């Protein structure tokens, strides 16, 4: 048992706690919500202990009878800590928030079961176990989405979720079969070692990617994610922080295999990039805080898929971690939105940057990029073209921050502050990226050589992100022009993809009346 990765015990502890709470599913089940929180804290502790094991002993595998079950490496170790941490915070939040609910104990049991399932998915050493984790997660999440089963909207959201998620599971099951047939293994380590992708493994890989994009709420089947606010706030936090990234995490774990197929990589770039821009534009139009956050998640997961497609695996993992922390906090703290909006109104109208100011800010941002990137190149070595392109996309975002301080009406003190904030932001993300490369770069494949296809996609991505960023910076100049009113309506409706899905699955029908 000395090879036992300690985080592998976390699902067991969580499952035992879940079982205990299931026995008292009702209101105020004594000290059991505290027990749930302690189980969460215990799994965080095990995750941290796993990091210790990793440092002291290197990667470990739990393989009874020669079957690789659970693994501990730099990737799963980091994710175990993340899920343990957000899981604990969510359980702690739920302990207070759910107090007095009629099905309080059941809620905690389901939350524990969901965290346990995610823990299995991220630590599983073979794909059938990943699938088992996903299936368990689907069943548990569906129950959580139906926590208020009398709400027809909840029924509709759950119906959409289970269909998309189950389609992902079917795709994954078929992928496992085909990959096993084509490569002779379904173990993650084995699959990453496959030298040549051929035969049944090719469609297998495509199906694997399909499963991943379905589970990360990628366009066009993203709709379920934007409706799950029907469940209590802690569920949203857990879902957006951890669960939604599990598909992407599966891709990163199999980076060595996925990168074998330039076609799959290109598809990830195109779909991920489009989803990122689409989700971000829809988010702009959403006036309900949780709904806007959900669209933001769609966008961020798209961006993560884009990073995967570019072969920037370590950065994709960083994105998963950073986004999970941000989004968990944003959901749990969403009750403060009334005060946030009031605070934003307080200083009066926003100074609107003109065309010249925006152009200047793009110039400044690119200058900033040059300085910071050169600095980091000297310190941390050359960057791949993909990494440089991604840096450019991100710097376009920073230019928006600069532009806000460059408006003619903005006082000098404000300009200095936004410039300082922009510089800090640029330093922070390049710093985190260097850190990510240091931590996970060694266990992940380097970005692929840039051929014609890759080059074209990189140019396309940089151009489209740059264009949207430019339009965004000029936003106040056109957003209220009558000619864009129709565009706003279509975007606010998420281009009707949810309505079409509703139409398809009968989501507009009257709920079953008892």
């Amino acid at each position, binding site marked *: 048992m000395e090879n036992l990765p300690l985080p592998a015990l976390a699902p067991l502890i969580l499952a035992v706690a879940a079982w205990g709470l299931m026995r008292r599913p009702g209101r105020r089940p004594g000290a059991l919500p505290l027990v749930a929180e302690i189980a969460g804290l215990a799994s965080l502790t095990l995750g941290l202990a796993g990091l210790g094991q990793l440092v002291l002993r290197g990667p470990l595998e739990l393989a009874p009878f020669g079957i690789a079950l659970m693994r501990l490496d730099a990737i799963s170790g980091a994710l175990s800590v993340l899920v343990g941490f957000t899981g604990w915070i969510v359980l702690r939040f739920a302990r207070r928030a759910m107090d007095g609910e009629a099905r309080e104990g059941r809620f905690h049991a389901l939350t524990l079961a969901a965290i346990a399932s995610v823990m299995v998915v991220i630590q599983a050493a073979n794909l059938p176990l990943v699938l088992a984790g996903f299936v368990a997660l689907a069943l548990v999440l569906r129950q959580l989405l139906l926590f208020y089963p009398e709400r027809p909207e909840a029924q509709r959201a759950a119906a959409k979720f289970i269909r998309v998620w189950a389609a992902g599971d079917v795709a994954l099951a078929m992928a496992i079969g085909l990959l096993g047939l084509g490569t002779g293994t379904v173990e993650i380590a084995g699959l990453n070692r496959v030298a040549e992708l051929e035969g049944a493994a090719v469609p297998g890989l495509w199906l694997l990617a399909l499963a991943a994009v379905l589970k990360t709420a990628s366009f066009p089947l993203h709709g379920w994610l934007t*409706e799950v606010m029907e469940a209590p706030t802690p569920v949203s936090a857990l879902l957006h922080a951890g669960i939604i990234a599990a598909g992407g995490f599966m891709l990163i774990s199999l980076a060595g295999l996925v990168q074998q197929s330039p076609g799959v990589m290109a598809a990830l770039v195109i779909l991920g990039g489009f989803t990122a821009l689409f989700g971000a534009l829809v988010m702009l139009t959403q006036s309900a805080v949780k709904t806007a956050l959900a669209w933001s998640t769609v*966008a961020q997961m798209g961006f993560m898929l884009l990073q995967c497609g570019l072969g920037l695996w370590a950065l994709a993992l960083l994105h998963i971690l950073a986004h999970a922390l941000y989004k*968990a906090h944003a959901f749990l703290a969403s009750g403060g939105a009334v005060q946030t909006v009031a605070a934003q109104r*307080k200083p*009066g109208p926003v100074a609107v940057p003109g065309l010249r100011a925006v152009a200047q800010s793009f110039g400044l941002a690119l200058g900033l990029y040059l300085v910071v990137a050169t600095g980091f190149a000297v310190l941390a070595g050359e960057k791949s073209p993909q990494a440089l392109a991604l840096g450019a996309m991100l710097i376009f975002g920073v230019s928006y921050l600069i532009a806000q301080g460059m408006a003619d009406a903005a006082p000098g003190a404000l300009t200095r502050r936004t410039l300082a904030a922009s510089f800090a932001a640029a330093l922070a993300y390049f710093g985190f990226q260097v850190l990510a490369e240091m931590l996970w770069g060694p266990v992940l494949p380097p970005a692929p050589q840039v051929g014609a296809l890759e080059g074209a996609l990189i140019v396309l991505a940089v151009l489209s992100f740059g264009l949207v960023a430019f339009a965004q910076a000029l*936003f106040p100049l056109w957003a209220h022009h009558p000619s864009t009113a129709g565009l706003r309506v279509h975007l606010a*409706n998420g281009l009707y993809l949810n309505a079409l899905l509703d139409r398809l699955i009968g989501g507009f029908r009257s709920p079953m009346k008892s």
Partner: protein
Amino acid sequence: MFLKHDLTAEPDAQSLLRAAEAAVRALPPAFPLDATVAVNPFLGQVQESLAQASARLARVAGVRVTQARADLVAQVQAGRIGDEDLAAALAASALPGKPESLGDLRARMHASSPEPRALPTLAHLVERVTGCDWPALIARSLGLWAAGHFDRGQALWTPRPGRGAYAAWVEWATHDLTPEIAGLRGFCAQVAEAPDTAERAILRASARLGIGAEAAETCFHRLLVDLGGWAMHGRWQLWQAELAGETLPVMTELLAIRLIWEEALLAHCPEVAGDWRAVVAEHGAGLDPSSDQVLDVILQGAAERAHQRRLASVLSGPLPSVGRPALQAAFCIDVRSEVLRRALETRDPGIETLGFAGFFGLPLAHRPGGTDALQAHLPALLSPALVSTSHGPDEASDRIAARASRAWGRFRQAAVSSFAFVEAAGPAYGVKLLRDGLGLGGAPLPAGPHPRFETALSAAQKARTAAAVLRAMSLTEGHARVVLLVGHGAGMTNNPQESAYHCGACCGQTGEVSARLLAGLLNDPETRAGLPALGLALPEDTLFVAGLHDTVTDRVQLYRDRPAPDHEADLQRAEAWLAKAGGIARAERARRLPGPGPDRRARDWAEQRPEWGLAGCSAFIAAPRSVTRGRDLQGRAFLHSYDWRKDKDFATLELILTAPVVVASWISLQYHGSSVAPQLFGGGNKLIHNVVGGIGVIEGNGGTLRPGLPVQALHDGAAPQHEALRLSVFVEAPRDAMTQVIRRHPGLGHLVGKGWLHLFALEEGRVVARHLGERADPENSWEMT
């Protein structure tokens, strides 16, 4: 000149538009959550009795306005409601169809009361035929539009500002494909051809839907109820406009929008025309309460009488007063003050407390730090007359800091830049998660900067304002060395409804600014110099000190805005008393609120029940404190200090009856409405609240705005924490004087005369008479008890 034939000028059209106006007025305003105050949800029905309102709201909203029959009967069976209460309530009822005798009442009350069902809209009728959930679809589609239209800064990309609801919606709906995808073919084109004004749209739809003048009012009311909180938010916009002497067409526009939907659905599914005609006919029928509604109203009255009986037994005459008090402390009339006042008075027999509305009589519009915008700090019924500010020497740099943090916020929200934000700042949120998860954020309710008047006040104005306030508080003689003016606020974290827990008399803000400004004014030597000429003599050594009562923790913070070395010992003693009293109050209030202590609740971002707010409020007593001193009123009574002997020409009585009593009845009716009709007047479930537009909450994904009190503010999960009772108001004043005031003020007359509150006269601290309410006649308004 062309003579234009104006459709809207025809007599039929006039009566339809009048009905629309009446339907608009039938809805209560819902204040936005950044500064919300309680509003009587039955504001549009106060000219009717509870029984009539119960018939009306059953028809248009399918809600009841009394406690559930089963709950009332359970109280009879438990003996809480006695035979004498039932008999008295029965005798007081003048409704046709009431039980003939007590025996009859007791026999009939055991039958269950049928759940009220609202008359269906066309959307409901079409749903029954086609199986498509049109009511939900309309709620979702209109909700998405309304969220953007009424947004005050949540989304970065809002619709073009400065346009009316109707024009904005027409533009939206001509582009929105959702209804067509759901099966309503040609809807966009129909909207594109909609009449150019809301009035014409209402008239055209009424004609096509066969809605005549007699059916129109409840028919329109029904449709506005369907828009839920959005319509109530529109009603608030109208309310604000009217306070400023203007008007706004938003409500008729919302009605027009909903009518265009009905029109389109009838065209979509003409086979419901017959059913629809029957519904219109029902709308045209009279609004007579059913015998079950009459019975429920009588039982409700009996429950209130039982409560009044218990209260009357507590009020058994005044206590003698002592000489110059050791400390005087004026608190807000808020029911939460009652507990702390009682506790404070047990510390020393020389402590005297007073009750007064927490804006302390200053009609303020206040400019807080960091903004040029004004906040109202006075009851919602009044208009501000004084301007104050908290701007300090650092205002300019604070403003820059606020704008920089706003720019950072937009960086977080905007397209493309949000990706950079996550990669740069996401990891820092791990620290924030830990901080907020462990409740290590800053203390809620930090003391603000020193406020000051912006309105230049002359010495004479200062003295006049001060004298008016002191008279209104009945604080004209016997001043202690230290007089505390204690406002209140509620410190909590991450709660969208936070302002609902603050001071209602300060328009959903805390009472800090009002208390500090009044203390400063009363300590001002110019003020003091002018008071004797106005017949008010304050002792030289009397110091006014402002404070803030945190109603979550029951801690009182004193603002020592003026150095007062001579009073240091008095102030330290006062602080020690307040600290002790806070402990007693915490212990008493904790019995109702199991779980962690109030200090943790205030900081916990997961807390759904930081305190009970005004839940339980049921009585209002205007009398000298000696009448209620030492009586345990369980934190359920508004206490207003009033001594009619000092009230020349009863001007203060008039003020009390028309302002604080009305506000208290609104609060009590808000709790009433949210308790008995949660689907219409309740705020829903906090666990699935989704803050929208910075103005309110929706539940889950979308749909209608949910104003009112959420379930968690009324219910601890196992048992309700508010007993829905109309307010019982006890005033120690001559009955004739009260009758005169009621006659002069129709609004108050309706509240009393239609039974929306119960009014009692006290004499020497004992209940002597009850206002007859609906049975009052010009000769006789009171019955002796």
